[in-house]
């Protein structure tokens, strides 16, 4: 008797991308569970060509496969799914509401609207939506899905044991010698991540608590008009020397930034999970974040989640976490617990239960 096959479809496979890393982890899990499993994508980075295949190679009409679709953006893969007769489940990583990009990027608005429509359409043929967070599960139900379950993203933080990029680490160390706290945010420069709110909070913090404080914004400028506006805003506030926009960085450079920071601050207004929170906890960084989307669920009691994210409140919160050793100790202990909660061993077990229940139901039932 041949092995059960569970293939994954993902719009694109790119090194360093959270969805791609998760998809590779799920493939490893599926194989450990005894299933045959391959990954198919419409676009593949050359570094992943030996691990991911083009979607046109997906075997069709021969025998029944189980299809797990990694859904986080609009893709022609969604139309392909509608034509398949194989059992389909969706691993949902959230779709940012298009309204965040209105007035900034009409192309992104159109793509995100299409993605939301596709998510609703796929819900009619998929037997279950496996969601990173309860927030994402609620989002799918709002899109008309009736069967959802929560299984957190498979994140291997051991990757961060890599050596930090030496040039970056040296540069940050020289900067630290000048004094002042170092704020860090990691995420693409987009309107919904609201990096301009962090700039405002830094201005307030420098005016009140620490005139030498700095902010490093690590992330690719995926919405160019927003990135341009952000850079001009920084200049207009006279903060050019205090705010660094790094653009995209290598993994080793990212490690250096985590190791060189004092606090991770997030103003993001919409997050389906927010991996950088866990990365920061892994580096023992205190976290101050806007309590938006899945952030409170991911962060738990391991950081300060603010419902009022006005600049004075953020400034006071950052000052508190940096100057109160008792609070730092409590957050660090809660952070260690959080890392166990989202550790690979536990999240693999949760994901395995969800996948096995789906497969054992023949792709029809609810995990």
């Amino acid at each position, binding site marked *: 008797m041949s092995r059960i096959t569970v293939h994954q479809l993902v719009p694109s496979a790119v090194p360093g991308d959270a969805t791609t890393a998760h998809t590779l982890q799920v493939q490893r899990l599926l194989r450990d569970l005894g299933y045959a499993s391959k990954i198919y994508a419409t676009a593949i980075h050359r570094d992943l060509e030996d691990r991911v295949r083009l979607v046109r190679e997906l075997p069709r009409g021969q025998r029944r496969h189980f299809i797990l679709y990694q859904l986080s953006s609009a893709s022609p893969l969604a139309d392909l799914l509608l034509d398949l007769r194989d059992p389909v489940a969706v691993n949902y990583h959230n779709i940012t509401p298009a309204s965040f990009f209105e*007035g*900034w990027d009409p192309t992104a608005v159109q793509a995100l609207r299409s993605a939301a429509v596709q998510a609703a359409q796929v819900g009619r043929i998929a037997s279950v939506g496996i969601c990173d967070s309860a927030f994402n599960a609620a989002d799918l139900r709002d899109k008309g899905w009736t069967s959802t379950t929560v299984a957190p993203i498979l994140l291997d933080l051991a990757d961060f044991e890599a050596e930090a990029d030496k040039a970056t680490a040296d540069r940050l160390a020289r900067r630290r010698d000048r004094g002042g706290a170092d704020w860090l945010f990691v995420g693409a420069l987009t309107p919904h991540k609201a990096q*301009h709110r962090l700039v*405002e909070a830094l*201005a*307030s913090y420098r*005016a*009140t608590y620490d005139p030498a404080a700095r902010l490093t914004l690590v992330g690719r400028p995926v919405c160019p*008009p927003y990135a*341009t*506006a*952000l850079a*001009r*805003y920084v200049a*207009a*506030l006279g903060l050019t020397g205090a705010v660094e926009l790094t653009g995209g960085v290598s993994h080793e450079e990212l490690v250096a930034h985590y190791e060189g920071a004092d606090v991770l601050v997030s103003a993001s207004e919409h997050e389906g999970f927010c991996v950088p929170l866990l990365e920061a906890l892994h580096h023992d960084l205190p976290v101050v974040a806007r309590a938006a989307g899945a952030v409170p669920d991911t962060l*738990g*009691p391991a950081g*300060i989640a*603010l419902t*009022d994210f*006005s*600049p*004075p*409140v953020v400034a*006071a*919160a950052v000052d*508190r976490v940096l100057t*109160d050793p*008792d*609070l730092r100790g*409590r957050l660090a*202990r*809660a952070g260690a*617990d959080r890392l166990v909660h989202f550790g690979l061993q536990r999240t693999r077990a949760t994901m395995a239960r969800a996948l096995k229940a789906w497969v054992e139901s023949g792709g029809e039932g609810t995990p």
Partner: protein
Amino acid sequence: MTTDDTAAAGTGEADSRAYLAQVQREIDDEVRRRRAAGDFPPSFERKLDELFARFTPTGTSDDHFTDALKLADRSAYFDTKVPIGSRKTAKGAVRFALWQAEAWFMNYVVTQLNHFSSSTMRVVHLLDERVGDLERELSELTPAPLPEEEVLSPGADPAPYLEELVERLGAVADRGRILQAECGAGTLLAALGGAGHDAYGIDPGSSAADAAAATGLEVRRDDVLGHLGSVGPESLAGLVLAGCVDRMSTAERRRLVALAELTVAPGGLVVVLGTEPAAWEETVGPVAADLAPGRPLHPDTWAHLLTRIGLEVVATLAGDPASFALVASKRAPATT
């Protein structure tokens, strides 16, 4: 319960969440304290929002108009040439075939679009020239502001009206807070507080206001128009306007009375504590009087301005020949 007490209470997640809730309350208290001390003026946050709005694609203004115009110029041309360059011969051939099939129709449509966009851009450029001319003329008409020390006058002294103002404002104090702008040494604030009413003041910055804050009065460092712009609608029981009313320009006074009408609750009071124009000229001298962008108005003029926006003048108090206190009420909605 203190933070230390909570920390000792346990290590479970529920305890951690309770501890964090306490920390957040302490952070909120810290912010309230600093806001009251003027460290975080509300107008600062509003100005940040306005500044960022200038850089958004739909918020172009001022000197960025030229940048926006250049951007529009660049995007006002639609290229009819399909990109057919490719290192893979087969793909290039396919694209070339597509180009042959579609080019004539694309060219027809895009030529019209280009006509439309170029004529539109011509109009925008003409508009730019006209707006530029207007800005130049306006800058010549607007006199440069006087140095602050020449413009700032002490404002009317509230002492002669204290008792009656406290009584009148106290009678409506159940409708919200009482705000005095500008509060100076805080004489009226102290009297209102002494009578048990919830009052605070704002001041753009004077040594008298700093001294008032040092005595424990809630005095925030902020400008009047900026602060009123950030106060919630109909949230004030009383609004006392002092100091600034003697030196504002006509446009600023119009905005001031509009904001007063907006922020005072129905049944609440607006008090103008002003200097008599003749007394003001004697105080500041002829140079400052002639060059000031604004000068004190007669109480009749204030009554006219306030009545025009729907307030009812209920009293003009005259306790001192050099000043006046005009009291106007915002009508409460009729009940059936």
